[in-house]
């Protein structure tokens, strides 16, 4: 793997650091510990800086979407706005409702942080820049996302607030519904590549010079939607639905505790973008261009590309109701994912049995893209036909006309 990257920059901190420390000391344990600490620091600083940058990006881009300028007072172009936000949040009083559930109330802001950070451990930033190459990487990501929903539930429960409890119930219900399409969608790249390790999947895409997204457009769609649902972002932000249940599970959190929830939402968005980028869009590889640009820059670029997509979604769409969101999962995403799994397994079987070259991937890509459009068209028509039954323009009438109506049936003020 090492031989592949031999470009002009040859930036490979882990490997070179490893060798350098290896020269200085002969203690294997020391090298191991140092590398672990350096890697963790690197990932944490990326995540921390990323969260700060996301605050600015999100506010700026949403501002642009909403025909306004966004933050532009603190620092050049409002760049210091996140710092100002953070300072404001830190110095705010942290209120705790008296009826809240003591320790349980203080735990969730910390607990949600752990899975958010852990997600970044398995990403492949460059061929040799992998912090933890788990051979169950994909399942590990799914397990982490389910832990996040539990922490959010704890927050809602411990606040002892009715809005918060409603939000918590919604989170739990969503977690149950959207875990299934998510697992089924992420199964498809695993089937194709024959490995659950993230670096392995990225490597498959690099060696075959194809993105799995071409072959598996449907799982990309399913995963992206389930991920927005798990992230609690519009159009699926029902857990914190501002207009309905105030702020959902974090209604009672103020100051930096709220800040942590907010930061975790941004970090999780980055994580989801990272998963999309590495499982479906080639990770650090870019059709050979990664020989000339440091791969980790490509990977971060891809992460921010998908993150922009998430911001765009938030700036554009209204929110679905919880039962519609559930119906969307059970009636559309799960059947689609099942169909997709059947088709993909057949394709993988044909490929493996006949030992075809990688040209077959482009055939599969064509087939699957066509299949995706047909299926999506069918399901969308089925799900939304009721909404188009009436005209979407008001009728114009020139003169006043009041129809004669049956006897009053109105009961307001009486019983009811």
């Amino acid at each position: 793997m090492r031989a592949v990257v031999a470009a002009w920059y040859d930036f490979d901190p882990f490997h070179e650091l490893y060798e350098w420390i290896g020269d200085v000391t002969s203690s294997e344990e020391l090298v191991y510990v140092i590398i672990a600490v350096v890697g963790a620091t690197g990932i944490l600083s990326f995540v921390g800086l990323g969260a700060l940058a996301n605050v600015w990006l999100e506010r700026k881009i949403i501002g642009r979407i909403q025909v306004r300028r966004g933050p532009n007072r603190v620092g050049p172009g409002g760049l210091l706005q996140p710092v100002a936000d953070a300072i404001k949040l830190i110095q705010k009083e942290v209120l705790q409702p008296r009826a809240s559930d003591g320790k349980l109330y203080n735990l969730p802001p910390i607990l949600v942080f752990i899975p958010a950070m852990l997600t970044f451990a398995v990403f492949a930033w460059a061929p040799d820049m992998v912090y933890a190459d788990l051979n169950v990487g994909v399942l590990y990501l799914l397990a982490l996302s389910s832990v996040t929903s539990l922490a959010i539930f704890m927050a809602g429960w411990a606040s002892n607030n009715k809005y918060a409890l409603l939000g918590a119930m919604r989170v739990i219900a969503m977690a149950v519904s959207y875990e299934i399409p998510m697992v089924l969608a992420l199964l498809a790249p695993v089937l194709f590549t024959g490995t659950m390790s993230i670096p392995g999947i990225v490597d498959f895409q690099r060696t075959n010079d194809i993105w799995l997204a071409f072959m598996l457009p449907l799982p990309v769609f399913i995963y992206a939607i389930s991920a927005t649902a798990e992230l609690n972002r519009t159009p699926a932000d029902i857990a914190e639905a501002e207009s309905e249940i105030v702020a959902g599970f974090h209604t009672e959190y103020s100051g930096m505790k709220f800040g942590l929830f907010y930061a975790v939402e941004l970090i999780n968005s980055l994580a989801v973008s990272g998963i999309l980028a590495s499982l479906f869009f080639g990770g650090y590889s870019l059709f050979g261009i990664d020989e000339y640009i440091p791969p980790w820059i490509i990977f971060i670029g891809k992460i921010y590309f998908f993150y922009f997509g998430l911001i765009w979604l938030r700036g554009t769409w209204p929110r679905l109701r919880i039962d519609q969101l559930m119906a969307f999962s059970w009636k559309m995403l799960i059947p689609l994912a099942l169909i997709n799994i059947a088709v993909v397994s057949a394709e993988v079987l044909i490929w493996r049995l006949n030992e075809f070259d990688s040209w077959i991937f482009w055939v599969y890509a064509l087939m699957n893209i066509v299949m995706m459009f047909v299926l999506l068209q069918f399901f969308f028509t089925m799900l939304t036909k009721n909404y188009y039954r009436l005209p979407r323009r008001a009728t114009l009438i020139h003169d006043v006309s009041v129809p004669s109506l049956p006897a009053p049936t109105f009961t307001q003020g009486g019983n009811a």
Partner: protein
Amino acid sequence: MSDIGTPPYVVNIGPQHPSTHGVFRLKVTLDGERIIDAEMVLGYLHRSMEKLAEERTYTQNIPFTDRMDYLAAMTGNLGYCLSAEKLAGVEVPERASYLRVIFAELQRIASHCMANGTFVNDCGAWQTPLMYMFREREKILDLFEMTCGARLTTNYMRIGGVAFDVPDEWYPSINKLMAEMPDRISEYEEMLHDNEILLARSRDVGVLKPDVAINASVSGPVLRGCGIAWDIRKADPYCVYDRMDFDIPVGHNGDCFDRFLVRLEEMRQSVRIIKQALEQLPGGPVTTPVPLALRPDPGEAYVRIESPKGELGFYLASDGGPAPYRWHVRSPSFINLSVLKELSVGLSIADAIVTLGSLDINVGEIDR
């Protein structure tokens, strides 16, 4: 999650809540997320305007009407001044009538921008449609500012006319705005008509039956949303509306989306009216001199106008003194709100919020 049989769960939506459009409280009993009972609690914004008015002269009462429906101050002014003029028998110059129509219709556009924007916000959009609609609302408020110096609480109409004539730079501004407004409205339609999520959230949600609407005395876009073509501007024309050519938009189904559509289309019709009024706008004075301490003869007057929210009625009774003996306001928000319980029982919390948003209430007007 309807029939699991969980214990009922009482939630207070409001008085502090992001989408009650003011300090209004809806106490709902939930089964899961479904509302099985709803109780409206009003009065958090009660400022006792009707009683205060009995101690003030007729002219001094005009600012109160700004602060009733603070999103449509012009129509509040207009309705009050019309009723005071009817009580005192004051004639209004023609130019003032035209200006009143223009400003009332501008106010209607501004108010509908606000209503539709917050409605889509209540459906969960992250402010974007609201910001688009605010763009046009800002321009309308600029026109107000040019004319009377205030943007929100305009206090522009006077008994016997309007306070000021429009300045010269006002004409190019309004012409430009009216030229681009139809495109803007089309832009909103483009943005929102084909949006499946908006349709899913508002089609068939909060369906108001025509008979219920009429029996509840609902008016305005809420009434027209259920397919009844009723508009005071045509049924009982005031100012110079009888000289204008416009249509009444009506909905098909009476659901939240229809109310939204009716408001969008009404903005178009308002633009039409303003264009005609600008063409016909005569010269001359903008106000009839009226004594500052107006003492109408004993008697009473009731005038109703079509405010952006519906039928806004002003009842004034005089005992011959400088202050009204009794002032009563028939506020459309209050009466339109009365169907909320009928509409929201059986819906989920999210739908009830959308329904509340589509009724376009203004708590300043409800509580007065």
